[in-house]
């Protein structure tokens, strides 16, 4: 039987709220990027928007999966029927496998798309990486760890890219974006440690929340600087 839940009982639902905040941040930036494309006609806006939408989609799958699993477990615990509980947990297992497979696949694809904006990839590379992402999230006994390690690697590369951009443009906002992705990357380390104690799951979720809140802050900085320039 697969491990259905990593969250401690007292944190049920907390992760859902944090994922909702992450979705809000990602979709806000994606929508702005799509609106910007209409003005600037630069394809990178579309790529950024799509990668953020795919990432938001991955969190949506995680929410749906977690919500159903928590709901089923809490409901069957209240009913107290052993058989019913067993069947629900089995059903939750199937849901967990499918839901989290889609979550992991979309998450890695979204991060890879974001990484590819700054490091243009030949078509052959794209097929190879997408294939490897698919394989690593499917045929692997250590899927959980492989996923978080891959996610950490991609996020670390994206963070590095933003700091490289900062060294060229010397913009505070770019540095801030770098920090936010760095914090999200570090949340992956705590997700890796969940097998030690489930408390790390809570730490990882809170660190993820901090990362996406910083990203939202960076986005507001962009809008504010744009307006300030207008006043100059």
């Amino acid at each position, binding site marked *: 039987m697969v491990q259905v839940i990593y969250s401690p009982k007292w944190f049920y639902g907390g992760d859902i709220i944090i994922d909702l905040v992450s979705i809000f941040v990602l979709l806000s930036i994606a929508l702005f*990027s799509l609106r910007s494309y209409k*003005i*600037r006609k*630069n394809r990178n806006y579309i790529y950024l928007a799509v990668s953020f939408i795919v990432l938001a989609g991955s969190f949506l799958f995680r929410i749906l999966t977690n919500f159903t699993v928590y709901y089923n477990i809490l409901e069957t615990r209240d009913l107290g029927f052993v058989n019913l509980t067993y069947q629900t947990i089995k059903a939750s297992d199937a849901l967990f496998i499918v839901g989290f497979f889609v979550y992991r696949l979309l998450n890695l694809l979204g991060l890879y798309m974001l990484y590819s904006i700054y490091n243009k990839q030949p078509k052959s590379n794209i097929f190879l990486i997408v294939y490897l992402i698919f394989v690593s999230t499917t045929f692997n006994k250590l899927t959980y760890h492989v996923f978080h390690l891959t996610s950490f690697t991609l996020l670390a590369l994206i963070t590095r890219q933003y700091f490289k951009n900062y060294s060229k*443009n010397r913009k505070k*906002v*770019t540095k801030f974006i770098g920090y936010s992705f760095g914090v999200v990357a570090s949340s992956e380390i705590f997700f890796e440690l969940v097998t030690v104690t489930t408390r790390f799951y809570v730490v990882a979720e809170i660190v993820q929340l901090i990362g996406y809140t910083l990203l939202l802050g960076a986005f507001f900085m*962009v809008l504010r600087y*744009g*307006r300030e320039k207008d006043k100059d």
Partner: protein
Amino acid sequence: MEGKRTRIDIIGDMLSSILDKGGEIKPTHLMYKSNMSHTQMKLYLEDLIAKEFVRKIRKGNYEYITISDKGCSFLQKLKEVKEFEEAFGL
């Protein structure tokens, strides 16, 4: 060295030049301030008037170009978009 200006960059420069002059400018000044040829400016100006970003007004013997509210809000959007582009390295 800066690359070739895109169409939207030129529009942005034109609107900024008008705003820098307090919202109204003479066509010749606009041409110099936006680094454009006469033909180029005529084409862009027609486009901006059609989009209601600017208006032509006459004061005595002189003709002026004024920026509209629509033009101001477009310029603000454009600056936000440019800031976004630079910040995210797009």
